[in-house]
């Protein structure tokens, strides 16, 4: 039964922010796909509306049960996600050279999206079980290391460099929040420094090229160099007030690559200027701080750690995507969550937001 207190404690603020975000996303997609639609093509923004509707249903569903259930479900869900990641390597749909999608009849989804949330839950379980206040030493961390390494490896194998490293970032963020003693920290940093060349040589040729073209865009004038250049023109030409809705020339003339997915932010920045982009960033910042507040006020460590992990997902995705389209980071193909077009990513993000609200609602409940 739904407790009355649950409704009293329902996180209306977060829900409101999400609804606002959905509106902005759909409006922006309408503009981003305008040139394609004119040609009689796509109804992408309509599809995104449907995805948001499904997303909100998933969000509400994720608030209905007590999140303790996740603790028990953590490992089965983890192995399920791993199984899907293995399956996608064999049965996945190949698009532009990598296998990231599993098809289920008419819909297809990326198992790596599921893996993100599941990994957060599994790590949260690990860090909550050990109810000590000691800082973690390196040798205490072998378990989270393995738990992260397996999905990371499978995703890199698809190959999806961006998402693979993204997973590692989330895991590291959670470890740092859980407290590590400073000696281990130094060793960790040193080890990752040593691992860098190993990762480098483990990369596929095109992945190496991407990193190189980020370091010096003139090396790849036809690929990512061109994309970053056009994206920077789009963002910069927005200036302070922007060119206005549907008036972005870069967008209209289709100079932007992937303008409804990875480069959706550039469309917003062109049409709404610095004002619009900063407001969007502030919305994300608000979500992040709100999430950390939920983490702090959660009545137990498990909830705190899950909330922290979800915040890490939001934070890194925003930083990587915005960094990428503004030319601060290499183009790794990470979409902007709750903003770019894409069903898999949207549903999994909404599920994560639902869990966040779930934790928030139950912060006063002691049984």
């Amino acid at each position: 039964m739904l407790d009355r207190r649950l409704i009293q404690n329902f996180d209306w603020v977060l829900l409101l922010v999400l609804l606002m975000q959905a509106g902005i996303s759909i409006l922006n997609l309408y503009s981003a796909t305008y040139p394609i639609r004119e040609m009689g093509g796509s109804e992408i923004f309509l599809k995104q509306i449907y995805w948001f509707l499904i997303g909100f249903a998933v969000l509400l569903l994720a608030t209905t049960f007590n999140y303790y259930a996740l603790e028990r479900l953590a490992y089965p869900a983890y192995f399920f996600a791993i199984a899907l990641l293995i399956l996608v390597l064999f049965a996945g749909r190949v698009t532009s050279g990598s296998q990231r999608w599993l098809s289920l009849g008419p819909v297809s989804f990326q198992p790596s999206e599921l893996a993100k949330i599941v990994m957060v839950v599994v790590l949260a379980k690990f860090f909550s079980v050990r109810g000590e206040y000691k800082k973690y030493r390196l040798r205490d961390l072998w378990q989270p290391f393995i738990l992260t390494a397996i999905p990371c490896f499978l995703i890199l194998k698809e190959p999806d460099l961006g998402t693979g490293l993204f997973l590692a970032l989330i895991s590291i963020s959670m470890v740092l929040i859980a407290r590590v003693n400073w000696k281990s920290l130094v060793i960790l940093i040193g080890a990752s420094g040593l691992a860098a060349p190993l990762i480098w040589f483990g990369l596929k040729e095109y992945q190496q090229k991407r990193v190189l073209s980020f370091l010096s865009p003139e090396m790849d004038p036809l690929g990512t160099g061109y994309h970053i250049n056009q994206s920077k023109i789009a963002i910069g030409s927005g200036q302070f007030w922007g060119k206005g809705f549907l008036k972005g020339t870069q967008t209209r003339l289709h100079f932007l690559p992937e303008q409804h997915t990875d480069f959706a932010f550039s469309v917003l920045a062109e049409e709404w200027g610095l004002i619009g982009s900063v407001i969007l960033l502030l919305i994300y910042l608000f979500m992040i701080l709100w999430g950390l507040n939920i983490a702090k006020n959660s009545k137990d460590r498990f909830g705190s750690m899950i909330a922290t992990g979800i915040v890490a997902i939001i934070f890194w995705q925003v930083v990587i995507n915005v960094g990428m389209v503004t030319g601060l980071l290499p183009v790794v193909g990470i979409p902007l969550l709750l903003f770019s077009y894409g069903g898999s990513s949207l549903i999994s993000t909404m599920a994560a937001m639902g869990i966040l609200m779930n934790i928030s609602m139950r912060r006063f409940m002691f049984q």
Partner: protein
Amino acid sequence: MLKPSHFDPVSSEILGKQLKVAILFILVVFGILILRLWFLQIVNGPTYRARSEHNRIRLQDIPPFRGMILDRNAEVLVDNRPSYDLYVIPEEIQDRSQLLNRLSSLGGLSRETAEHLLDKAARGYPFKPVCLKKDMSRDELASIESHRFDLPGVMIYVRAQRHYFYEGLASHVLGYVGEISENQLLSSQFPKNRPGDLIGKRGVELRWQTQLNGIRGGEQVEVDAVGRKIAVVSRKAPASGANVCLTIDKRLQSLAEKSLQGKHGTVVAMNPSNGKILALASSPSYDPNRFIKGLDEKTWQDMVSSKDFPLQNRALTGQYPPGSVFKIVMALAALEEGVVTPEEEISCNGSLSLGNATYRCWKKHGHGRVNLHRALVESCDVYFYTLGRRLGVDKIAQYARRLGLGKETGIDLDTEKGGLIPTTQWKLKRWGIPWQQGETVISAIGQGFVLTTPLQMANLISSVFNGGRMYTPQVTEWVRKANGESLFEFAAISREAGIKPRHLALVKNALVGVVNQPHGTGSKARLNDIVVAGKTGTAQVVALRKEGASKREEDIPWEFRDHAWFVAIAPASEPEIAVAVLIEHGGHGGSAAAPTAKEIIKAYLQARS
């Protein structure tokens, strides 16, 4: 109810401290992002605004040059030539009707076609150039060039077009190029290719597609209001495709094709001691250049549905009953199995009766008593009927397979067929009825279910003169990049058929006799100074011909006439060339096919000395 982890104020306090650090970090990072936006949109905003207003920087592909295809003497068979294509940018047309009028008078462009193409393109991006005419003539090009300033929006692109130097020469080996298909794109068979690319569709063009293709380059160019390139912002040079050298001898190839003119058939010539294909002709043929210019639907349909099957490579995919050529296999099988000795004589009185069926020898009144040698030389059917009965069909099949029949030879070209060597099991599975005695008898002379390809036959005689070594036929000598880096070099691939040398010697001797002895069936292949060996074959097209139908060849309708085979090798002592000739509905192998084989052998061996 699940047991919650207990609330712990100490833990919560520690978390609070960690979170403070995290918040600080987050604020700093967001600060950096906002600063970056400030830098792009405010500091450099005006610059970017100006650039976006004049953004005419476009990406232009620079297609790579496809590699050349050469013959064994490095003579160019396929290369590229420039094609001048006429394009229009719809957005920049000022007066459409006027422009089209001018173009039709200057460039020989029909108004309707141009209207149609422009209407079709109207749904696309207005800046995207639309191709109105490919491969303009020199005159058209000159008149358009001289009126360029009256023709806003018109552009001329130069494109390298595949050019098959000798129209129709070796087309079945070379193959042709065509636009990449939907399926090929989806299957990521050629991951580097994009929609609209021309790729190898058949033959060598397909086999070495990845190597021939080269790597696409491109440039970021700045264009002016009329769409002309005014500056190259940056550029990545394309890399030309690798060149492919074939084992084919252009001269021999064209001789082979000439000999097939007006006929349906095929000629394969190969080097028996390494499997290199010297000539591979199939008739009727086609001119691959026609595929480049783009075939209209009707021409294509005609080609595909024509009863002549010009696209079919008969040497590899034509499956014919081998007729008497199969006796080579029979003789070897019988000797190996010991069911006959070279000396044993079998009497032929013109036919063999089995149950209530009678199997005739081609020689009406019989050969009398014949041993193995004479049976091969004079191609006595009754002798081999008898061997067939002694061996049984499964033993025959076992040796036929060892000698490379009934399966693909593995040549480095696409769509090869394996032929068919029947067994009792096969018959039961395929037809659901047991094998009949009579079927063994007709199989023994290469009729009935037995099917082989001409390439397999050339390979068969090669192995007999090779001490039983079977070489995989190949057409590629090397594949090398323009800078000389080698991607592939010919290396012979072979296996042992496992036939005893003395048995091979007996058959070799008999095959020399076929051409050189008085009663030999292949005397038309005889040369004065070179010892040629070979075997004739006549493959019945209609299984049952009416009793006593000893009609003259000319009286039989063409499509019911027999296929003529001749398989030859020379010089017999140290063979350098093996040839298989098949003339569809040519009649007797000895008369219809042997002279062709002789011409080819002669030309090749003379050129060598």
